[in-house]
């Protein structure tokens, strides 16, 4: 099997915007942040993403404003390049090759230095570049900070603070108690330098903040300690004048300390989740906190949250399946603890959060919280079923059903069923029938599966329709694992260990049983469209295909399938197969046991969550091997919570064309600027967010 040249696995959307501290522009109008391989420019007032700066081939690791032109930004990446961008127009200006492919950060220093010099000490490497920026390799560091005058770099790692004076090339090392229990609590977590005084603030694992002074002395150095945070301090930042110190951590409280009067402090609580980075705009009017749940909060005047930029929440793990909301085409998955998030892949933006658990989240270790473990949407997107579970001493489960409210355009809780089963629920699914009455099936490890139906109340009562149990099924008191409706909703397949039982939802009769030992069934899936007579089942060793008309095994093959997924818009079925450490993907039609697309070593780790997202308009011009991506796009989550997808050649070409347009535009713009006859056009272009094609037609019409 050959690697397919016309498709490529890429990060599309949902990448981390909290990986590095964002940058606020000089005029506080824009917020620039890294986002995987691209850089995003947001408006601080409208939360809108204005530009995607694309060009880096690897993870972007550092951002800094150009000290000599505040409308430009430098970025560095693991691909070993430093790029200079015009962020107002979204144009790449210059690429510098460094050949250093380590995680690094960029810092700016005042004063123009035209020499390019580098030095390294141990695992740390500092490099002055010609543009007045300093490039730091941070591979081995917990955190580092550069003094505003560029005299020294403070870096922390474990229990040691290093201060390196760049001009004198002297190096100081300050270690805190490193023995036993103290060592873990003393560990440095972050560092910041005072903009005016020679004072370094460090945060520690036990929640203390130390302010170091006299750090150009081996012995006579001194520090003072302040303590408010109860767990580690994650972020520290001085305001531009150095009058205040901001700190944040797990408590999701922004603490503002008065520099010199550390006893006085102000708090901005309830910021939603643990603070990871803090930055302050150059004029001090805006604070930005980036949070662990992939969120950036913009705080105005030290007191008011004015904007929230939310990326895809990468929680501890996605327990629910990946789903696509048929109404909004949004990806639905676990978000914040106890929430479901609706994430628009097209706009790469979170649409909304739905609070499922509706309980205050208490941030404390060893506390068992309610978690959303299962969720299902019906085919029209009018019903949402969720299962929440808390496994304290005994398992507490409740099943909630949410109806879509046209008026408020969101889901409203309709029915709560507490303890629907005696054991944990292993799967829920809606029947895809297009009639008004839809059925929900829940399968539990207690040996039963239950069918739930919406019952219309008495017209005389004022009550709304609610859900109740319609049927309880079991099979030889075996443990059921998974369930699946056929595309038309006329058949329900439930797997009990090695046995697949096929039921008629209309009468709840057991129609037939299918079995192919050895091995318990792990996943079930009906074929679609012309292949709807086939039922696919995956055990931990085999993939079997049964023909439901003959009730016999059509074919089977030895595969360790971790996930079976049917494309709702075509006959294609995707099977993710876990090899030793990597995952392989096979796409096939159930009618023939031969895959028409396969890719080995898709990613590392096992893929257990994936979804076919229907495209807005079908793609054409694909080669044969990527035809299966015409109607839908396949998204999947790796074990370290990266959302990946396939990019086909036509799509790539379209993107290339877009960036070329930008380049052409830039060229023309420069010509205009040189001749200065049509200066107003460029101003017009930069000030109004017109679509690129509109700009192009405008430019072309002016040229002609």
């Amino acid at each position, binding site marked *: 099997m050959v690697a397919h040249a016309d498709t490529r696995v890429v990060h599309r959307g949902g990448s981390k915007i909290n990986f590095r501290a964002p940058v606020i522009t000089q005029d506080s109008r824009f917020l620039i942040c890294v986002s995987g391989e691209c850089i995003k420019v947001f408006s601080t007032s409208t939360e809108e993403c204005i530009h995607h700066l694309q060009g880096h081939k690897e993870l972007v690791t550092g951002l800094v404003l150009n000290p000599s032109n505040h409308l430009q930004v430098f970025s560095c990446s693991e691909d070993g390049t430093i790029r200079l961008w015009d962020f107002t127009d979204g144009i790449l200006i210059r690429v510098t090759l460094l050949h250093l492919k380590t995680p690094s950060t960029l810092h700016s220093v005042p004063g123009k230095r035209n020499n390019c010099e580098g030095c390294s000490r141990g695992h740390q490497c500092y490099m002055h570049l010609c543009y007045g920026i300093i490039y730091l390799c941070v591979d081995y560091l917990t955190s580092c900070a550069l003094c505003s005058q560029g005299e020294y770099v403070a870096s922390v790692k474990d229990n040691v603070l290093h201060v390196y004076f760049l001009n004198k090339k002297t190096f100081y090392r300050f270690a805190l108690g490193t023995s036993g229990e103290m060592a873990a609590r003393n560990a440095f977590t972050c560092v910041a330098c005072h903009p005016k005084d020679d004072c370094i603030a460090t945060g520690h694992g036990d929640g203390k903040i130390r302010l170091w002074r006299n750090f*150009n002395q081996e012995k006579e150095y001194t520090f003072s300690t302040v303590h408010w945070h109860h767990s580690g301090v994650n972020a520290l930042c001085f305001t531009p004048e150095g009058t205040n110190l901001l700190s944040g951590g797990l408590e999701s409280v922004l603490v503002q300390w008065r520099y010199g009067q550390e006893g006085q402090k102000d708090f901005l609580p309830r910021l939603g989740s643990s603070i990871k980075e803090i930055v302050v705009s150059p004029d001090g009017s805006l604070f930005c906190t980036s949070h662990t749940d992939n969120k950036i909060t913009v705080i105005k005047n030290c007191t008011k949250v004015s904007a929230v930029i939310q990326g895809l929440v990468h929680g501890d793990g996605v327990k629910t399946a990946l789903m696509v909301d048929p109404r909004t085409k949004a990806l639905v998955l676990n978000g914040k603890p106890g929430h479901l998030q609706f994430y628009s892949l097209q706009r790469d933006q979170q649409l909304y959060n739905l609070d499922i658990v509706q309980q205050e989240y208490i941030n404390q270790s060893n506390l068992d919280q309610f978690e959303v473990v299962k969720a299902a949407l019906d085919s029209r997107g009018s019903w949402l079923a969720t299962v929440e579970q808390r496994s304290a001493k005994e398992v507490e489960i409740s099943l909630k059903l949410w109806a879509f409210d046209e008026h408020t355009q969101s889901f409203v809780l309709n029915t709560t069923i507490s303890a629907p089963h005696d054991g944990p629920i292993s799967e829920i699914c809606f029947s895809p029938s297009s009639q008004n009455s839809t059925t929900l099936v829940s399968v539990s490890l207690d040996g039963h599966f239950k069918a739930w139906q919406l019952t219309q109340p008495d017209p005389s009562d004022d009550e709304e329709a609610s859900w109740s149990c319609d049927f309880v099924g079991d099979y030889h008191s075996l443990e059921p694992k998974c369930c699946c409706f056929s595309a038309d909703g006329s058949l329900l397949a439930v797997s009990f260990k090695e046995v697949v039982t096929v039921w008629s939802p209309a009468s709840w009769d057991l129609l037939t049983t299918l079995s192919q030992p050895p091995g318990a069934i792990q996943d079930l899936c009906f074929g679609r469209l012309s292949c709807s007579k086939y039922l696919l089942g995956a055990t931990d060793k085999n993939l079997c295909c049964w023909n439901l008309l003959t009730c016999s095994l059509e074919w089977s093959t030895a595969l360790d399938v971790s996930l079976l997924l049917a494309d709702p818009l075509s006959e294609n079925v995707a099977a993710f197969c876990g090899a030793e450490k990597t995952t392989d993907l096979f796409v096939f039609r159930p009618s023939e046991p031969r895959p028409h697309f396969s890719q080995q070593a898709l990613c590392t780790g096992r893929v257990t969550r994936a979804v076919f997202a229907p495209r807005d308009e079908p793609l054409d011009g694909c080669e044969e091997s990527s035809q299966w991506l015409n109607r839908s796009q396949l998204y999947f989550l790796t074990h370290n919570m990266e959302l990946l997808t396939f990019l086909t050649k036509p799509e790539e070409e379209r993107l290339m064309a877009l960036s070329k347009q930008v380049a052409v535009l830039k060229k023309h713009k420069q010509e205009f600027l040189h001749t200065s006859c049509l200066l107003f056009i460029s101003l017009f272009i930069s000030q109004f967010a017109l679509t690129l094609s509109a700009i192009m037609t405008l430019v072309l019409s002016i040229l002609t």
Partner: protein
Amino acid sequence: MGEFKVHRVRFFDYMPSAISAMAFNVHTERLAVARADGTVEIYNFADNCFQEKVIPGKDGRTVEALCWAGQRLFSTGLNGEIVEYDLENLRSKYTVEAYGGPVWTISSNSQGTQLAVGCEDGTVKIFELVEDSIQFQSNFDRLKSRVLSLSWHPSGTQIAAGTMDMIRVFNVTTGHATQRMMVDRAAGANKKKEVAVWSVVFLSDNTVISGDSAGKVQVWDSQMGTLIRTHLVTKWDVMALAVSRDESSLLAGTSEGSVVQFQFISARLDQPDKEWQRTRTLRSHSHDVRALVHTDTAAVSGGNDAHLVVRPFMEKVVKGSKESAPCKITFPHRSLVSCGKKAGILLFQFPERLEVWRLGESNENGEELSVTKKPEALIHLKRKGDDHICCSTLSPCGGWLAYASASSVRLFQLQYDNDSIALTKVEMGPLHVLLWFVFFVPHYLPSPSPPPPEVSKQAVHLMSTSDDGQWLATANSDCEVHVYNLKKLKYHCTVPVYGSCPSAMAIHPTGSNVVMVHADQKIFEYSLEQKEYTEWSRSLAKKGLHGSWLNRVAPVTHVSFSASNPDYIILHDMNMFCIIDKSLPLPEKDSDLVGAETQLISNSSVFPSVFKNLLCVGLMEDHSLVVVERPLLDIATRLPAPVRQKKFAT
């Protein structure tokens, strides 16, 4: 090493008294500590913080402030008197009435020629030091409220005085106030409460630093009378301030029990303009820090929880050296317990009374024995007069008891008659009665035939007799150990003077050797018959003691011997006791010594983990060990409640 039946005694409810004032003499490196009961203790910082002298207190005398003027030590108290102490005879030399009501503070100028006292009636009085006395010189302008704190400018021309709500600066020659600096009151509900300026410090650059009852440490310019900087340190009071000799570091003691350090450092590196920045916070106390001293290498603090804490600054000392170990002194460095070895009774000494207890008994064998007969208190003996008991002793047979105060010595005979005990006061008669006793009475020696001519005038702080009553050894704070022959009643010899003060001493019951342990943890054995160090002592000196023994901070306070094995020496300090077996070879100097049963000097056992906070370890006649413990927790629970502090998650 042998097994012992151990009496674990915890019924000695000794309470150390709160520390109220401290003064440090930089030249002699002596720290004077005054306690709430009027006791004044002298610690020698050149000799491992050894408690060299104790001047016993007296009813009705409190000490509010202490100060050194050259070699002379003065104190004042709320009884309105200024006291000078006789440091050789360990008693007050004379008292002078200040005629200003209770005296809150005393301070001497850096030249040591004048004393300033601050009185309740708002006057600052200047006394001149003359030979053997002080003489009233002048009164400054009277202030409206009591003078709580005083500080001389190092030049001796100005004095800063802290009163209620205000700091005044006086010109010493004219006696007029030159500046008035108003101190802000606390915000909120305490707005109406006057602020007491508990402490002021006058620096040579004319900066005045004050600590007040609103919890502020404020830096003032005394020439302009303006406030430079305010540091809010605590919600409660800042009770004490101390500045280092080079005026680069300042300590502030608070009612929360923390000590806050400020350092005079520049905001930008390598630039001259400096300011006072708050740096470290030391938390060594549970209660108010009433007194503070800033030595060159350490912060010394004392307060209501009665601990004297020495916290070295790590940047000033060599890491791992003896000076770098923090030190907490709670118990006096002398014995408060005497054992009647033969009778199985214990004598406990309190400042105002003596208690005699009989030990409990048990018939069982095993690891933990249950007490079949409970220990019982036999006698509570109240002292006569105002002077506190300074030493006491019990004869080994338990039949005689004696105690001494600054003014008198009293001797009693105890008669046990089944259940009743008779106590008869014995008139101090013939000298031979004293043969069984050890008295720690300054200069109270049965003056035998002419003492050696070169004997120092310093008070004797240790005495020991041999069991057969032949020898008497005395040690004084000039580190001299003299031995007398009691049978012949004449001076026998002097042990070669060693540079550190003996902290414990005993004469071996059979070998007529005297074993001395010094404050620097060195051990010597001296043969009285040959008048030279014994072979074992010389080999010990040659080989050197192990570092982990020498780096202990608490001095050994008791030496005793085992009757069963003459090679055993039993030593103990506050934290551990150990048994040295002289017959075993010495361990290597750089070998690792880890664990509870380690070899320290010779093959000795140390029991640090089992017994803690030891006041006395003694061996009884029946080969059982008496361990008198006073857990620090018991002391802490009997102290008044500290100021309330919000603790996280409570």
